[in-house]
């Protein structure tokens, strides 16, 4: 599902590479944590999977597509198979929960009728049934992140990328979000999550890949934060 083959990325003006000869293979349906200190290169991996950053050396293959050589005009279509959740939610403040999710569908060409059928379903799935018409500022942080997860998942992506999704949430809420991601993972969606949160990693007991200074220092099935 996701392959990084001897990937090296050095940003212009950087003294050392952000990723140094990294090879990782992630299968369909896996749940993977990337952990490591700030600046270790975790975010660079996320950006590569989204084709926001292209490696200097090596190959990145996502969903069977070689991202390394992908032309930028193909990027929009490629992104439709990847859902994204971020620490800062990235919701549109002037749209309700329903509208935020529907927006993601409509801008990729789905009709309003499709949105009417699919959006309530996915909001129900993330546990926001009955709060469809609240605006982001009327929702708690955890609820806002649920909207973001609903938006990422509404298009039934093959991969869900979560970049520190619990970074802004308290421990209890974080655990609820993790339950949600776990449920999404059980539908067959590959989940890749970047995190600092040792509690969560330790509780979930999933594959852990630890990165330090651009190198993989640990890759452990059913790992802990360490």
């Amino acid at each position, binding site marked *: 599902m996701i392959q990084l083959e001897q990937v090296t990325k050095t940003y212009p003006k950087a003294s050392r590479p952000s990723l140094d000869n990294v090879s990782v293979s992630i299968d369909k349906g896996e749940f993977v944590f990337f952990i490591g200190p700030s600046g270790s290169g975790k975010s660079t991996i996320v950006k590569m999977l989204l084709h926001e950053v292209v490696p200097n050396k090596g190959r990145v293959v996502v969903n069977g597509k070689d991202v390394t050589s992908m032309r930028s*005009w193909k*990027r*929009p*279509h*490629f*992104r*439709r198979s990847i859902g*994204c959740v971020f620490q800062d939610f*990235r919701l*549109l*403040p002037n749209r309700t929960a329903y509208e935020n999710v529907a*927006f*993601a569908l*409509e*801008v*990729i*060409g789905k*009709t*309003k009728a499709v949105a009417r059928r699919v959006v309530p379903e996915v909001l129900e799935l993330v546990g926001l049934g009955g709060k469809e018409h609240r605006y982001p500022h009327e929702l708690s942080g955890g609820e806002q992140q649920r909207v973001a997860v609903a*938006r990422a998942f509404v*298009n039934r992506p093959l991969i869900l990328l979560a970049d520190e999704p619990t970074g802004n949430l308290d421990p209890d809420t974080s655990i609820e979000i993790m339950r949600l991601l776990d449920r999404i993972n059980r539908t067959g969606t590959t989940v890749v999550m970047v995190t600092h949160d040792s509690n969560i990693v330790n509780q979930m007991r999933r594959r852990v890949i630890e990165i330090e200074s651009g190198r993989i220092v640990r890759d452990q099935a059913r790992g802990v934060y360490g």
Partner: protein
Amino acid sequence: MRMKYVMSEVLVGLWRNVTMTIAMIITMAVSLTMLGASGLIYTKVADMKQLYFENIEVSIFLDAEVTDEQRSALATQLESDPLVSQVTYVNKDEAFQRFQEMFRDSPDLLSAVKADQLPESYRLKLVNPEEYKTISDQYTSVEGVDQVVDQSQVLDKIFNLFTAGQNIALVAAVAMAIAALLLVANTIQVAAYSKRREVAVMKLVGASNWFIQAPFVLEAVVAGLIGSILGLGALIALKIFLFDGALSALQGLFAPVSWGEVFLTFPVMAGVGGLISAVTAWVTLRFYLRV
């Protein structure tokens, strides 16, 4: 639904920054009016050149003491000249008649000139009126010729005036176009900034590039089109109040500006206005949104 979405985004975009939109439309309108005006002047000058050149004559005035041999030699030479299409001889009496007709409103002048004071002349029509110079060089030195006078030289001065006017209008059009261009770029930047969250989400979920760009580009194009409509209005006003109004006394001098010609400038103005706006907006987005 997508078309409806795009159109409503365009309207919201134009309204969100309405002072900038108005500034953009006004500069665009002035620029396009100048462009249209210079186009009209250009076609008019071409029309008038044709009109005048058809009737243009080169006159070869003869010396007062010209001999009969010199006169007939010149006539043969002119008649065999490939540059000359028609030759008419005007003797002193005919010249005097023409003179009397021309100045019949100035009796003082008429009484001051006697019939034998006016020179005889050959009036030539040229195959190509612009080859006047060759004719002049060729015949000024011929025996018995006093001087060679070309009407087109006088006309050229008038045409130069028109061409200068046209150039001024073009320069003004370009200057205003640059201002309009910068305003479009600025408006698009502001619009892109105020929609940065939407754009970020659209890029994230994989909206196609054209779909992200379309509202911005169309916003600029709509402003350009409104500008060209105002430009057409300005040209119509110019025709009504300037050509048909204040300058109507000079109608014999100018080739008339028809409504058809005024309206024909519209597709040009709309095309140029729309295209420049679209390209500017698109380029701005490439730099600003990197989509």
